């Protein structure tokens, strides 16, 4: 039943909408500043709730709603299956045992307060946070962790492979959980994964996938599902019993509105009908930098963009030709002219800054057309014509292609730019003889480890390896690094660094830049915080 207060609020709202113009959910923007140090973690919320000062919800907390003009749809809302953009919402509803902080490169306590492993890295015990409740009021405990991992393994889709070495799970007491593994694995990192590691309530045991698809699910996160209209909106509401407590200024509700067109999202923000958005066009971002009513916050979500060459298509099967292409790529021009501070040049490491195993010491490929010419002559290649594939999902790709085309022309190499749909490019790239000579690949890892990048993109026969690169020595190093990362992290760093050195020498492709996710919000909003894979809306406050 509707209360009279709601009716009054609603009537005022209708008047605003119909007479005064566009609806606004929050107070008008105050004067503010351009680009925020978005990836910085607010001092009072280091890893999330553990650092906050718990404040119980009460009348003194103003009711405020965050409207988030969002770009993509979520194909799959079952946390055990989701493997796309879903963490953007799932990370607000569910939590993980550990939390990755891209500022320090470390995992921090989440639902687990501490953890330890045996010497060979096959037995990991996590101590769990006490007093945590699920949204349905049930207690979070070791059984919930066991249920989550076993459910993912049983469904065995999407990100389930992260638990491939889990043989059994013991729950010696309600606040301790022990993973027994068939081989050493970095469970502290795996339990911080952006996909597959969200802890869900055992009460969802009988629920079919369709139930999750309706916008339902029981986690321990700061927000709970309220409603979901596919293609239209999703509403999350504050979980009053959140174990981290609530501070003044945090949002009581979050409304995602699905607006695929970047220009429309920008208009929603500027008109005040949304207070937060993301993925705007670079040109628009430049204009917004001067607008005192908005804040631009690039957040490190540990994604890296590679330029990959098809190693199976002659003459790119010759390392000299690949190295020549690597030297011909105008990385500085691309990043400085197109991206500015919205990308960080990374020529020396196949692992982005913020993830352990990232290095600046390995030799990369500088832009050097003389050296490229020498290498092409050495390979006996002239009159080369290559296909560079791009998709509409990364609008700047075609501009990068044009810049590269201009430099390659100086070497007598013709670059043909060809557009594909995202799915068509994936399908074309399944076959080495039809895959394009060159394409970009963006890689955010499933969990924060060099292994994820190196294995998925450069491991023999892997889905992300559209370069068709294969080096048994590298494969062996990547496998060894995985095992070592479960038992001896320093040894793993050395092994992964050696693998990166070999890969860079072989030049199956090159790292180009680390790419943050750029959020734009009302200047009254503060506290932009990355949880490794996505923005953490619990960190946001409105002044």
């Amino acid at each position, binding site marked *: 039943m509707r209360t009279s207060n709601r009716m009054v*609020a*609603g009537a005022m*709202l*209708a008047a605003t*909408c*119909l007479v*005064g*113009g*566009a*609806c606004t959910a929050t107070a008008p923007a105050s004067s503010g500043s351009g680009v925020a140090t978005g990836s910085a973690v607010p001092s009072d919320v280091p890893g999330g709730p553990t650092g906050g000062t718990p404040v119980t919800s009460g009348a003194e907390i103003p009711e405020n*709603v965050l*409207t988030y*003009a969002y770009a993509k*749809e979520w*194909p*799959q809302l079952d946390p055990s299956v989701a*493997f*796309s953009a879903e963490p953007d919402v799932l990370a607000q509803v569910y939590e993980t045992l550990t939390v990755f902080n891209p500022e320090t490169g470390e995992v921090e306590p989440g639902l687990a307060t501490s953890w330890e492993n045996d010497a060979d890295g096959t037995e990991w015990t996590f101590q769990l946070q006490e007093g945590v409740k699920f949204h349905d009021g049930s207690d979070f405990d070791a059984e919930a962790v066991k249920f989550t991992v076993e459910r993912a393994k049983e469904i065995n*889709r*999407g990100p389930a*492979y992260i638990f491939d070495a889990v043989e059994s799970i013991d729950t010696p007491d309600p606040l301790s959980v022990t993973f027994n593994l068939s081989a050493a694995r970095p469970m502290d990192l795996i339990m911080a994964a952006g996909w597959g590691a969200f802890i869900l309530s055992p009460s969802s045991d009988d629920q079919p*996938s*369709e139930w999750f*698809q309706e916008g339902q699910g029981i986690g321990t996160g700061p927000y709970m599902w309220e*409603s979901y*209209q*596919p*293609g*239209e*909106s999703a*509403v999350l509401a504050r979980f009053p019993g959140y174990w981290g407590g609530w501070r003044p200024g945090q949002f009581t*509700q979050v*409304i995602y*509105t*699905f*607006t*695929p*067109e970047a*220009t*429309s999202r920008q*208009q*929603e923000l*500027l*008109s005040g*009908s949304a207070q937060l958005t993301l993925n705007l066009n670079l040109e628009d971002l430049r204009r917004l930098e001067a607008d005192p009513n908005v804040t631009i916050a690039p957040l490190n979500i540990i994604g890296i963009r590679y330029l990959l060459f098809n190693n199976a298509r002659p003459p790119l099967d010759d390392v000299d030709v690949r190295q020549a292409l690597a030297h011909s790529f105008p990385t500085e021009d691309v990043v400085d002219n197109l991206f500015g501070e919205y990308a960080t040049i990374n020529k020396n490491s196949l692992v982005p800054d913020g993830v352990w195993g990232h290095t600046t010491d390995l030799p990369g490929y500088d832009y050097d057309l003389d050296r490229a010419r020498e290498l092409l002559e050495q390979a006996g290649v002239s009159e080369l014509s290559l296909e560079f594939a791009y998709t509409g999902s990364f609008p700047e790709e075609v501009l990068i292609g044009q810049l590269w085309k201009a430099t390659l022309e100086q070497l007598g190499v013709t670059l043909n730019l060809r557009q*594909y*749909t*995202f*799915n*068509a490019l*994936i*399908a*074309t790239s*399944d076959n080495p003889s039809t895959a394009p000579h060159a394409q970009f690949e963006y890689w955010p890892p*499933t969990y924060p480890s060099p292994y994820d990048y190196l294995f*998925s993109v450069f491991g023999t*026969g*892997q*889905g*992300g390896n559209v370069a068709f690169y294969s080096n048994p020595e590298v494969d062996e190093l990547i496998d060894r690094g995985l095992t070592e990362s479960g038992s001896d992290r320093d040894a793993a760093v050395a092994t992964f660094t050696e693998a990166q050195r070999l890969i860079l020498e072989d030049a199956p492709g090159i790292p180009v830049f680390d790419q943050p996710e750029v959020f734009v919000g009302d200047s009254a909003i503060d506290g932009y915080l990355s949880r490794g894979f996505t923005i953490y809306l619990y960190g946001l406050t409105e002044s």
Partner: protein
Amino acid sequence: MIRYIARRLVFATVVVVGVLVITFLIVRVLPGDPARLYAGGPRATPDQVDRARHELGLDRPLVEQLGAYMGNVVRGDFGRSFVTRRTVVEDLARFFPATLELVIPVMSLALMLGVPVGVVSGARSGGRIDQTTRFLAISGAALPPFWLALVAQLVFASSLGWLPVAGRLGSEVTVLEPIDRVTGFYTVDAVLTGNWIGLGDALAHLVLPIVVLSVYPISLVIRQTRSSVVEVMREPFVTAARASGLPERTIMFRFVLKNAFVPTLTVLGLTFVASLTGSVLIEVIFGWPGIGRYVTDSIIASDLPAVVAVTVIGTVGYVVVNLVVDLIQAALDPRVRAR
């Protein structure tokens, strides 16, 4: 008349089945691997992709897949979308009303504005009203709708703040006064449930997309009606009616308009069905969760069940609307029945 209808229905069935088969085959040979998409895109392991292929039945021979699909369609089961993981029927029930809520008012405007203006313009052919109308109609038909949409957003939503930028409902209504879903038409549902605040908000969100979408059909109907009126007015029977001393008003309504309306009706019918799936750009710009956006996303993602279902339903729509238009034409013009 009954034989005429029966003949048309048989022909319509052949068309629908033909379109279903052709669409099914075309979507299957398009580049793109739905199994990989279903399994998780580039991150999926080869084993997961193989499993997805088997689960979706994509490893069966094409003819077998087609046969099974047609069998299901006959039972009203269009399968499950590879992308949204919901049944296609559920998706259509969600996205179709959103589009119809735009297209029905657009067509009503085209009919109510386009026909009278076209008649006046045609009746005063060569006059100042006709010249002005022709200029406006040509401009309206020539302006790209997506450009109009962006300009309208910028002016009426962002700058003046009179109307919402995008979406079907505002944030506050979504949270405070959500419209209970009955038919999927928010305006109708708001009335049915007595949610007047929701009704006001839904109407405010409809204004810009409807105005932008209606510019082209109105222009088209004006031009079509005008040229038909001009043509019919030159017919000998009009001259004969004038010579017999009938008043101009009677000539216009009883003879000219009745004949001139036949081609306009065809244009209206075809524009209506084309708008159902063709308003995708407007839907994208206004963040409108309609069928155009749904089918475009489905094509890009090689979402076979969704693409085939929308195409079949679009075809059925064309066939039905054409049939209705033809029947009205037959009622208006006995020569059509005789053909």
